[in-house]
């Protein structure tokens, strides 16, 4: 007993001491506290497909060109670029006086080494194919890089502008530096601390090439998995920005006078994917019936944070989007009729696989099940974890129906490439497939748009998916913080213009 009491006193004393340290306030300029809902697996921009990595890397690295806030590609590390008449030779003129965080000046050799690293098999980059089209890279002088492509490839500039086009320093590439845990780039912030699963500290790069930017000295990305903790942190001022607020938490934040809620359309394509090789879905009538049976707006409003309904496989805000929503409006009667014609009833058991780590998709899946049962279909739900989803459902096509959101891409080729030749929906359409390939080799918005219109038309009619829509994203930001941007189509955080009022 005595031992316990003694230990108890010691403990209380320790806590009191700790509390005392806590009371001392800091006077230096305030860091920006940002909530990140997960820990990035790696910070090597070439080593992953994970969005979290690119969201953090956006502040650490630069690309030659980048999308501005309207999604238009503008100069970044390259001041300008020219394309040869045959669209095969791309020349980039680098900005002068740019320095890496380790002090190395940026030269054309760094650019060459960067792209040679990503196409090297040993790097094992999931984005290698975006650069396989490069035949050679030449560096006529320190500030000029010339890419020669094997064939005309319209998405090239988009690939260069995406997160995986980040420029790394040659000197560290040569020594086999561990970019996964110690990123070194030219970006507006240097990574100064990373406590895995706890926080990532970014400190201002005073030599940043954009004069006068960034504004804030330090950004602390607090890794907080629990959304209610993020919300409470924002309300109490311990956090400045929560970039994704779930629908349930919106009313709570609306009541606070200290918080601004912003609502943006994401570039996500929310779908219910249909396995077109499996009966009864090999019959286009059944797939059409599914599209008639779903009240898309209701799903967007209930499961996702609202959004815009789409009628084909392209995000609503995309320059290549075309409206096909009138093709299959919500019409359960029509759905029943089509199912009757196809002879599909309650005795056909349909299995819907839901990724359990994405609660909105699970919620949407439950709504689809309900709506489909109203037109007389028998849908069974099977929950799977993400690894199983990606291996069995996506790669293995072992599903009847599944629910997912496809992330936006800077170039429509990124969204459409591979469709018509199977993909996970097992949809085969030679015309669509060859048009998609043709569009990738065609230059100029107008010419490409004409081809993509046809592709999207075929996909809208043949419905390998139930296209649902592009959802909204609500961000919660403290009133004294301005200028927080999200990069369009890439969904990365851009803190360069962020400041405290």
């Amino acid at each position, binding site marked *: 007993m005595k031992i316990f009491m003694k230990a108890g006193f010691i403990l209380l004393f*320790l806590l009191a001491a700790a509390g005392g340290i806590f009371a001392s306030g800091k006077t230096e300029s305030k860091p920006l506290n940002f909530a990140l809902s997960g820990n990035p697996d790696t910070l090597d921009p070439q080593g992953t497909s994970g969005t979290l990595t690119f969201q953090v890397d956006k502040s650490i690295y630069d690309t030659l060109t980048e999308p501005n806030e309207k999604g238009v590609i503008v100069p970044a590390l390259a001041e300008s670029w020219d394309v040869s008449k045959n669209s095969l030779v791309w020349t980039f003129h680098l900005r002068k006086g740019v320095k890496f965080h380790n002090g190395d000046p940026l030269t054309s050799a760094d650019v060459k080494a960067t792209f040679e690293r990503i196409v090297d098999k040993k790097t*094992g980059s999931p984005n290698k194919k975006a650069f396989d089209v490069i035949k050679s890279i030449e560096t006529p002088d320190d500030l000029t890089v010339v890419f020669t492509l094997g064939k005309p490839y319209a998405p090239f500039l988009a690939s260069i502008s995406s997160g995986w086009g980040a420029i790394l320093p040659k000197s560290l590439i040569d020594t086999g530096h*561990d970019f*996964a845990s110690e990123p070194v780039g030219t970006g507006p912030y240097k990574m100064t601390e990373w406590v895995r699963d706890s926080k990532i500290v970014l400190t201002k790069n005073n030599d940043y090439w954009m004069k006068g930017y960034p504004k804030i000295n330090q950004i602390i990305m607090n890794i907080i*998995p629990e959304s209610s*903790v993020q919300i*409470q942190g924002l309300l109490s001022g311990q956090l400045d920005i929560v970039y994704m607020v779930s629908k349930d938490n919106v009313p709570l934040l609306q009541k606070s006078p200290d918080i601004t809620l912003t609502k943006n359309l994401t570039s996500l394509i929310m779908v219910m994917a249909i396995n077109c090789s499996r009966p009864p879905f090999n019959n286009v009538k059944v797939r059409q019936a599914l599209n008639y049976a779903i009240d898309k707006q209701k799903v967007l409003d209930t499961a996702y944070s609202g959004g815009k309904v789409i009628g084909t496989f392209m995000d609503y805000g995309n320059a290549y989007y075309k409206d096909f929503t009138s093709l299959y409006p919500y019409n359960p009667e029509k759905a029943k009729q089509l199912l009757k014609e196809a002879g599909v009833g309650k005795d056909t058991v349909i299995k819907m696989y839901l990724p359990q780590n994405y609660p909105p998709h699970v919620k949407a899946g439950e709504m689809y099940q309900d709506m489909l049962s109203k037109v007389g279909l028998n849908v069974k739900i099977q929950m799977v974890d993400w690894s199983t989803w990606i291996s069995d459902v996506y*790669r293995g096509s072992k599903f009847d129906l599944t629910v997912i959101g496809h992330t936006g891409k800077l170039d429509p080729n990124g969204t459409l490439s591979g469709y018509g030749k199977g993909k996970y929906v097992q949809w085969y359409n030679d015309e669509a497939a060859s048009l998609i390939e043709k569009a990738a080799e065609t230059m100029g918005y107008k010419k490409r748009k004409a081809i993509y219109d046809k592709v999207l038309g075929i996909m809208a009619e043949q419905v390998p998916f139930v296209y649902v829509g592009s959802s909204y994203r609500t961000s919660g930001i403290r009133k004294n913080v301005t200028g927080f941007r999200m990069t369009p189509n890439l969904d990365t955080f851009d803190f360069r213009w962020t400041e405290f009022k």
Partner: protein
Amino acid sequence: MKLFLFILKRFFRLVLTILIISTIIFFVIRVIPGDPALVVAGIDASNAEIQAIRVKLGTDVPVAVQYVRWMKKLVRFDFGTSLISNQPVMTLIKQRFPLTFSLALLGIFLGILIAIPLGVLSAVHRWSLWDYFGMVYSQLGMAIPSFWLGIILLLLFSVKFPIFPLFGSGSIKNLFLPAIALGFARAAVILRLTRASMVDELSKEYIITARAKGLTEKMIHYKHALKNALIPVVTVTGIQFGYMLGGAIIIEQVFSLPGLGRLFLFAIYQRDFPLIQGGVVFIAVIFSFTNFLVDMFYSFLNPKIRIS
């Protein structure tokens, strides 16, 4: 000499246990669906890219070869490298272990601090106010889920009365609330057991003898009965400590703590084979070691229990 033999025996048992469970876990995680290369690759990668990733991760070779490679490393106490973060598994565990260990220790300590005194009081003063309080507490403790208690504690002591930080790690202040959330339920179990065991001891004949000898009630309760009553309590507390390392997963999630629980949870989600294997082996060692300590503690409580 006997102690030495005992430790040696225990050590061999531990090696055997690890060999068996590591083999089981090795094959189990490869039988269940999910491929780490696909987790890295994401949904846009081509087959060639996936194959290159498999080569890089070393998952392209047959499972038997992977098993031999892993065993070769394991005997040299090398757990290999995480497939996802590319860090040595041992480094990752070393980074995370102090936090989870302190959390479990503080949790069990707070649990004991509540449970044993309350359990003894309940047993000594049966059907008193103490006893009723103990009963209500243990009912609540077992019924309340720890993550819910965690969130309530956060709302109360980090939001309403901001005494403790809402998130972050690195100081003991970050551990206090999660330790309460963890210890609360554990205390309920220990409390019930302490009470039952104490009541049982107090009805034994040697207590009557002690009373007949004229010993004070205090002497009887604490010197004689408690010491004997604690033996089953120690066993259960030892096991509870092991469970706490597991229970920490949810609590670490709620309190944004970078501990072992989250490390292993994500390792499973992402099919990070070497990290899962290393984690299981590590937890097994901790469990065996705790059991060993519990056994040692018995002989301290009651010298009659010989090490054999």
